[in-house]
């Protein structure tokens, strides 16, 4: 079974040299810490940054330099700043090669729900709907089940949708799966996790073909 850092490390293996990448809040943010050696990726923050760098050194925080999670950040050499319109032009125009975000639910057709729970305070979708509606390559980082053990990988989302048929790949604490016409296709299983355990934790259609290798991180 993977922990959050394990999920982030596995997703970091998706990165390719030269890619522009948007990381959502939560587990996705951790992916930036595990960029493989020899690869250079540029992180976009949708409030208007390309080339987002690490947090500033203590005492060097600048209130004008925050990321989409409102954390103080730095800009790397070769980075650039732009306004919100241009930022979402990049996103909508499919200039970002990889988008990583969290989810409350993913359906086996690629639908995603990650912004609203009926009856609870709704904080808003932020940039998530723009990201999922446009990105070519969306990897979701999430726990396979909720605290009660119910599957979050469903036949059909029960929560209000963020986007329709848009997710490419899901990386959970139990498995790596692609979204295919026939549902979730199991690609890898977390260390120590059996295919049967993954089947039991997946409510949506799950395709298992041949030997399923363990995730290596």
């Amino acid at each position, binding site marked *: 079974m993977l922990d959050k850092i394990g999920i982030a490390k596995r997703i970091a293996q998706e990165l390719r040299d030269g890619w522009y990448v948007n990381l959502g809040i939560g587990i996705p943010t951790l992916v930036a810490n595990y960029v493989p050696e020899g690869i250079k990726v540029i992180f976009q923050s949708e409030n208007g940054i390309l080339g987002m760098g690490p947090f500033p050194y203590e005492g060097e*925080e600048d209130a*004008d330099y925050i990321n989409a999670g*409102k954390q103080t*950040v730095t800009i790397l050499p070769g980075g650039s700043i732009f*306004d*919100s*319109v241009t930022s979402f032009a990049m996103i909508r125009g499919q200039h970002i090669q990889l988008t990583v975000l969290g989810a409350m639910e993913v359906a086996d057709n690629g639908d995603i729900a990650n912004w609203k729970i009926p009856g609870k305070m709704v904080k808003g979708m932020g940039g998530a709907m723009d990201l999922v509606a446009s990105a070519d390559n969306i990897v979701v980082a999430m726990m396979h089940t909720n605290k009660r053990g119910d599957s979050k990988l469903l036949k059909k989302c029960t929560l209000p949708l963020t986007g329709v048929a848009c997710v490419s790949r899901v990386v959970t604490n139990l498995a790596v799966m692609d979204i295919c016409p026939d549902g979730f296709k199991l690609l890898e299983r977390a260390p120590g996790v059996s295919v049967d355990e993954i089947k039991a934790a997946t409510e949506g259609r799950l395709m298992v073909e041949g030997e399923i290798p363990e995730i290596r991180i």
Partner: protein
Amino acid sequence: MNKLVANATAAITGIEDNMTLMLGGFGLCGIPENCITALVEAGVTGLTCISNNAGVDDFGLGLLLQKKQIRKMVSSYVGENDEFERQMLTGELEVDLIPQGSLAARCYAGGAGIPAFYTPAGYGTEVAAGKEVREFNGKPHILEEALAADFAIVKAWKGDRFGNLIYNGPARNFNPAMAMAGKITIAEVEEIVEPGELDPNFIHTPGVFVQRIFQGSNYEKRIEQRTVRQRES
């Protein structure tokens, strides 16, 4: 040609009850602090505020919420604010949530004379309710209309009396698009400079979009999430 006014109080002249305002900023970054304070003092109510976020309880638009001056918020994300939550749950406050990119593009469209455009964002979600759906290149899109405001209030780094503005870092965010969209646009800046001091080649908001400008004071520039790293020693 002199758009310079003395201060925030002079700048917000003409903002009346029940008007629609656009306010720049992302979280607490790049918000027009001086004008928000002046609006609290002026006591205008029934405002519709178009702003990506709604501040925190005791800063930013939260100050207007505390005084119940806002009737409706048009935003993409409104967390981090207990008073906001209370007013929303009691129905005192109306909230229109819009995907962030559509919000930015709709403000820009309002300023650019584009009454409506198609975007994929929100298709198949409740955001699309009541909106026209049309396929382009085999992909469904929804029709989004431009947003308009009686006043737009933006915060910039430097500006001149012609209204030319530059912003610092990601404090730029929604400010340039909103500056374009106000019937009257007010800019508060950290520093007023002489015309010609800003390089014409590197102006973020050309003065044509700005009607009033003033040098603000006492900027708190509060940080919401102070994240730092330790120096390797």
